[in-house]
């Protein structure tokens, strides 16, 4: 039984190492000495996720719940916990510091002796699973409290980071793959393939240790990662490579993998959630096809034999089981554009053109919508295809290299997406927040607003677009003009103007403006503009009226 302490200390050491190789070495050393089934859990936890990717389990514990549990265990009030988390930039790190001296300075903390009562890695796994099953917030808080009460400072730090959905140690699941490969002398590609096929870094680690990675087979109904595309904003960017690409419309729907065997069908979303029940008509129509397969495609609102707007599709989202009325009001369809497995044979390693033939073969055997494939030899041809795609109600174009394999879970250059920004707006930053992952601790998330008379009304939030250097500089400035803090959010004086681009404008109750920008990107800072020169709500209304439904 390996103690969770060992894992937590390793993760802390990984965070402190600056080089990728040193990080991998630390992880490999730890994975190599975890005993028994603990390895499975250790590999998952090290990759930042408590469960296997294919499992439909999430701990879903909110920040406040964790903060309340931390307050109870440390003896500090919730407000102080919040202030500490903001000061340090990470709740887990802050709680680890608060627990470092025992009992906490002058506060009435619970007495604990973690070494006597230490948790094993497997016990942490069991407790996280209980947490995922627990439905009530009070129950979740009690469960988190029980874990923290038995934690050493470094254990508390990483338990909270795990629950908050980000370890911030500069390592991700591919780093863990490297570490597995190094720890057990397994082939790097074989490790990646095994993880993709079984959807579990934990099972992969165990198989690598036992030397039977080759026995891991792709299994239907275990969700796998999606291959992602690199964006381009102008046809010229791909002028040289154009003849190599197959061109398809880029649909504005919900990306989904459809698994099918016999009459069983499962749809998994980009977040690997099972969304089958949300789209019963899709499941029913796929079930009628013959054979077993895994398709990649898009769920779209469908009207008169063509895609309908994403805004209509939105009304179908997030409902576990849609009512009959809604089903007839907003019908949906699944358009397939890739085939990743057919009749027990995985096709990930096959070229796109081979996979395409398999897809067409399935569609010949029954009713399946398949995206048409086009060609463009020149940027001008690509642009006219783009305009036609927009005419058909689609978002833009996808370009797929004909000889590329399916790289699950990766964003590569074998696929490109061609979208054009609808317009840009000059907006004013009203609040900033620290980012996650690589940008942990940097004030990289900006909430921004447009002018409405002499006040500012929020319209969106953007995460990137600036360089680290710019974000750092702006961070210093935002710290100076911070006027209030709400947990991790800093309200700032409305004076920094940004130019943002976006895909479309939709109505929204989320923001005071009544609108939200879809996929906003920061184009550039506008130090030349004052807040009074930012765009107005009136401009937004006009843009919306002109483009609604796009």
């Amino acid at each position: 039984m390996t103690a969770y302490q060992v894992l937590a200390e390793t993760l802390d050491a990984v965070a402190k190492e600056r080089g990728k190789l040193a990080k991998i070495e630390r992880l490999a050393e730890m994975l190599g000495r975890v005993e028994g089934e603990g390895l499975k859990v250790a590999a998952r936890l090290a990759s930042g996720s408590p469960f296997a990717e294919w499992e439909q389990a999430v701990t879903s514990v909110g920040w406040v719940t964790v903060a309340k549990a931390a307050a109870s265990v440390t003896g500090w009030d919730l407000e102080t916990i919040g202030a500490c988390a903001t000061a340090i930039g990470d709740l887990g790190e802050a709680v680890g510091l608060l627990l470092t001296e025992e009992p906490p300075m002058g506060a009435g903390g619970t007495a604990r002796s973690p070494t006597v009562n230490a948790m094993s890695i497997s016990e942490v796994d069991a407790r996280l699973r209980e947490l995922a099953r627990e439905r009530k917030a009070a129950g979740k808080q009690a469960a988190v409290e029980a874990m923290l009460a038995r934690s050493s400072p470094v254990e508390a730090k990483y338990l909270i980071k795990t629950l908050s959905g980000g370890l911030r140690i500069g390592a991700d699941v591919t780093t863990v793959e490297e570490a597995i490969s190094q720890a057990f002398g397994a082939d790097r590609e074989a490790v990646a393939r095994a993880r993709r096929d079984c959807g579990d870094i934990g099972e992969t680690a165990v198989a690598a240790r036992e030397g039977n990675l080759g026995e891991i087979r792709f299994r239907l109904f275990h969700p796998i990662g999606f291959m992602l595309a690199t964006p381009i904003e102008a046809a010229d960017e791909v002028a040289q490579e154009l003849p190599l690409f197959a061109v398809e419309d880029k649909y504005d729907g919900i990306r989904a993998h459809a698994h099918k065997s016999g009459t069983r069908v499962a749809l998994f979303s980009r977040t690997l959630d099972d969304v089958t029940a949300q789209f019963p008509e899709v499941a029913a129509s796929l079930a009628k096809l013959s054979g077993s397969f895994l398709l990649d495609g898009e769920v779209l609102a469908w009207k008169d034999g063509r895609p309908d707007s994403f805004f209509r599709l939105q009304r179908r989202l997030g409902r576990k089981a849609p009512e009959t009325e809604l089903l007839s009001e907003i019908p949906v369809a699944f358009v397939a554009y890739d085939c990743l497995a057919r009749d027990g044979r995985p096709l990930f390693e096959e070229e796109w053109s081979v996979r395409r033939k398999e897809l067409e073969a399935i569609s010949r055997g029954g009713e399946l919508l398949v995206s048409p494939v086009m060609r463009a030899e020149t940027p001008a041809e690509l642009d006219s295809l783009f305009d036609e795609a927009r005419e058909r109600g689609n978002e833009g174009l996808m370009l797929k290299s004909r000889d590329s394999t399916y790289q699950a879970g990766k964003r590569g250059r074998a696929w490109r997406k061609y979208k054009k920004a609808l317009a840009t707006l000059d907006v004013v930053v009203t609040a900033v927040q620290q980012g996650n992952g690589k940008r942990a601790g940097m004030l990289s998330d900006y909430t921004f607003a447009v002018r409405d008379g002499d006040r500012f009304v929020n319209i969106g939030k953007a995460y990137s677009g600036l360089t680290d250097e710019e974000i750092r500089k702006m961070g210093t400035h935002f710290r100076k003009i911070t006027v209030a803090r709400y947990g991790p959010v800093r309200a700032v004086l409305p004076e920094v103007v940004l130019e943002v681009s976006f895909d479309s404008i939709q109505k929204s109750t989320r923001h005071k403006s009544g609108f939200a920008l879809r996929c906003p990107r920061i184009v550039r800072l506008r130090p030349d503009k004052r807040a009074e020169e930012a765009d107005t709500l009136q401009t937004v209304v006009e843009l919306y009226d002109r483009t609604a439904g796009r």
Partner: protein
Amino acid sequence: MDEPLAPFLEVRPEGLYCPAFEAAVDPPLPARRAILSHAHSDHAAPGHEEVWGTPETIAVYRRRNPDWAGEAQEMRYGERLERHGTTLELYPAGHVLGSAQVFFEREGRSLLYTGDFKRRTSRTSVPAAAPPAQILATETTFGLPVFRFPETKVLEDRLVAACRRAFEEEKTPVLLAYAFGKAQEIALALTDAGIPTVLHGAAWKLLPEFEAAGHAFPTSRAYETGPAQPGEALVVPPYCARTPVVRNVKRRRIVYLSGWAAREASRADFDADVLIPWSDHADFPGLLQHVADVAPRHVVTMHGYSRDFARILTTRGLDAEPLSSARERLSEDVAGAQEESET
């Protein structure tokens, strides 16, 4: 309370003002007469007509403002001045060379203004005193319980270990530390460990003031005389982290020494390989200790986490409040608007 520091100090838009001595305390803008707690630039603005402070503070102030032509009034620790029935005395603050807390007394009432202070010992500052006072105006830069800093000896050991590891890896230790105070402390600690240092000009030019106080730097030299050679550690201010001074050191191991190094996020901010939470400010337990020793009836907090620290004191039954400023009042207005706009 409108006049939390009365009768000794008035809160004015331009800072704290002592009517009895007709002097501003650590004013951020040029003043006719300024009482300086110490010579860090955020407390000792250039251009005052008249400056009162310890001899060390005045010497460093002169060195940092070579064109300054004002008048200086030196006050040693323990020396008392009296005007209009109010006495003024400087007590050691333990922050940097010459740093002082300012103590006022009048008709049995008293106020202690801490300036910046720390309770841990250090090589170049006289340990902080804690004279009992009825009103305590304290700094709270690190006024949250996450901020606890190890003893100086522990920090020095970490520093030496970080330099040795750098040498083993054939790298130059690049030590990011404030130019006045910390840089010299580091140089002295490394001298004892047999590690020579190359000091950035901002720190180097202050060595005479430290030498006058009895400290010797036999193995330190100025950066002007050439880049760090193998076996030497380079000491530069944190703002140099992304400048050529640091970037030109091809094989380097960056060590960030500051209370803010308690945050792992500062690793990214300063591109640091090693974080050492070495501060010249009181940590949270130090702040509490100071409050306990001074035993005031009323505490006014300023700098850093002033609101949080005041609230924490209040929950323990102490009468405490942050020094409200124009800035904080403004913030309440905008914060209200913000709450309204976020749904």
